[in-house]
């Protein structure tokens, strides 16, 4: 835990676990880098269907962690487990150990809305509210109790600046967010997410609907935001993972002997450079070099 961590209104384990060199798929971790998420044997089910299983990994603070892999490997499913987005899907459930700063995210005392306030999410398709630009950014702070207009104005400006959007929209904060371009909308969604000052920002293929220029801007933004937030990104784009992430987890789908359906598994998790230059698993190498997926 760093000193500037201010999320002490939920019981956060002060002595965050220090990471050693143990466990399969456990990457080399610098001593003293706090662990944000600690997963052991995590599986996600949709009804009887097991979408992903046996995931063990540690997500580190102020790093960008990329989840890559072919379609149907469960990477998005896993991402959504990080902020309990599965709660709203009937029949979906998460098993195994999924700790956030040492606290069981799915523990009985933990409120999903509190979790999501600390762990924000940016989606594949830009999804601003059908409201004004200002109201989009102010929505999160408002539901979290900020009513003061001056305070809100400051948060909106700060968030839009952080999302590199302020100069483009400062003169039309009152106009509808749906009138913006796709790239602007996605940056607005990022601004909206960071306006609630989360610790973690989850990004689910945030650039898949954007053109290369807009994509480049988002990637640049992610590198800037890294100093303030921990970022977990799901991406189809291996170059993107190589460009922006510190660590990469490679997933694939294998036939599940339990129910004869394809289930996602974590193959390899390591520092990004190693994954892309010298992967230890053959399946990773096949995928990286384009022989699979």
């Amino acid at each position: 835990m760093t000193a500037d961590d201010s999320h002490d209104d939920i019981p956060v384990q002060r002595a965050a676990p220090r990471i050693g060199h143990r466990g399969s798929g456990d990457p080399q971790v610098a001593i003293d880098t706090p662990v944000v998420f600690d997963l052991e044997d995590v599986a996600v089910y949709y009804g009887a269907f097991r979408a992903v299983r046996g995931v063990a990994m540690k997500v580190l603070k102020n790093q960008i962690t990329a989840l890559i892999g072919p379609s149907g490997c469960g990477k998005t499913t896993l991402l959504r487990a990080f902020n309990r987005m599965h709660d709203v899907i009937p029949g979906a459930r998460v098993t195994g150990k999924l700790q956030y700063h040492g606290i069981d995210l799915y523990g009985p005392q933990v409120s999903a809305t509190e979790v999501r306030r600390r762990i924000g999410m940016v989606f594949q398709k830009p999804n601003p509210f059908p409201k004004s630009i200002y109201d989009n950014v102010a929505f999160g702070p408002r539901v979290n109790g900020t009513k003061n207009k001056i305070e809100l104005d400051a948060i909106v400006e700060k968030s839009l600046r952080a999302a590199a959007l302020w100069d483009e929209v400062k003169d039309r904060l009152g106009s509808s967010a749906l009138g913006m371009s796709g790239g602007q909308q996605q940056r607005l969604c990022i601004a909206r997410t960071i306006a609630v000052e989360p610790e973690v920002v989850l990004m689910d293929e945030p650039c898949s609907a954007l053109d290369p220029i807009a994509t480049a801007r988002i990637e640049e933004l992610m590198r800037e935001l890294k100093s303030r937030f921990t970022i977990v990104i799901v991406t189809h784009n291996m170059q993107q993972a190589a460009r922006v992430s510190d660590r990469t987890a490679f997933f694939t789908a294998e036939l599940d002997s339990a129910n004869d359906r394809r289930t996602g598994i974590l193959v390899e998790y390591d520092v990004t450079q190693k994954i892309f230059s010298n992967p230890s698993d053959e399946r990773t190498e096949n995928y990286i070099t384009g022989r699979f997926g």
Partner: protein
Amino acid sequence: MQLSELHARSQHADRAFRVLAVVAATTVLVVLALITVTMSKRAWPVLEHMGLDFFTSSRWSAPEGIYGALPFIFGTLFTATIALALAVPVSLGVALFITQVAPPWLKKPMVYLLDLLAVVPSVVFGLWGVLVLSQHFGLGRSFLTAGIILAVMITPIITSLSREVIETTPQTDKEAALALGATRWEMIGASVLPHSKGGLVGAVMLGLGRALGETIAAALVIGSALGQITLDPYASGNSMPAVIANEFGESDGMHKSALIALAVTLFVITIIVNLVATAIVQRSMRRSRGT
């Protein structure tokens, strides 16, 4: 050769479809125009006889040849207002419950039940109103009783349509709010309602249209008091369709003309309501689209 035949045939089908569409559209317009013309023609004698007093006078005496429709216009709007005031919150609540809260095992039967209620003939509601509301609960025959019956009648329709509209809210829109730490209720306010606004107004207006035009149920419970203009919901009153239903059979001459003029007035009011609704829907859609 074969290719050109195929080409010609597809053009043919296209033209046939266009002709069909034009004919269908024209038929609707012609029927509407015919209704307007024939009804207005038959309503004309009383409008000539009464002038604007037809809309502003509150006396309706067939034996004396005095026809003032104001109390009936008032009664129609008043009961419809009561009905909307009761039905809209309930309908939206139920629609939101079904779409956002209810577990799947409860959702299906509720949807089925509501769709079933939406097609119950109005006379059934009317009789229920007479037996239960007026007699058992002692509400008598009044604006309020009529308003409640109309509310009961239009609730399934508004709920059913609202549910379908709300259901079209993209999951990602809802997740956007949830991912910001919004509660379910805040999510509804941020995503579901803004997304569905246009469709919800449309659903309410369809309900209003039915409430305005509802005849049998209103005729049974509104009390058929003549000349009553009061905001007291417990008072007996009358509405345009109820008067037409009650008096048309035994009417003749000027009296019949007056009843037809009531129908024309109702027709015009319904058209105005629909135009206003369309305008509201379009404006809200334009605004949320940001153009």
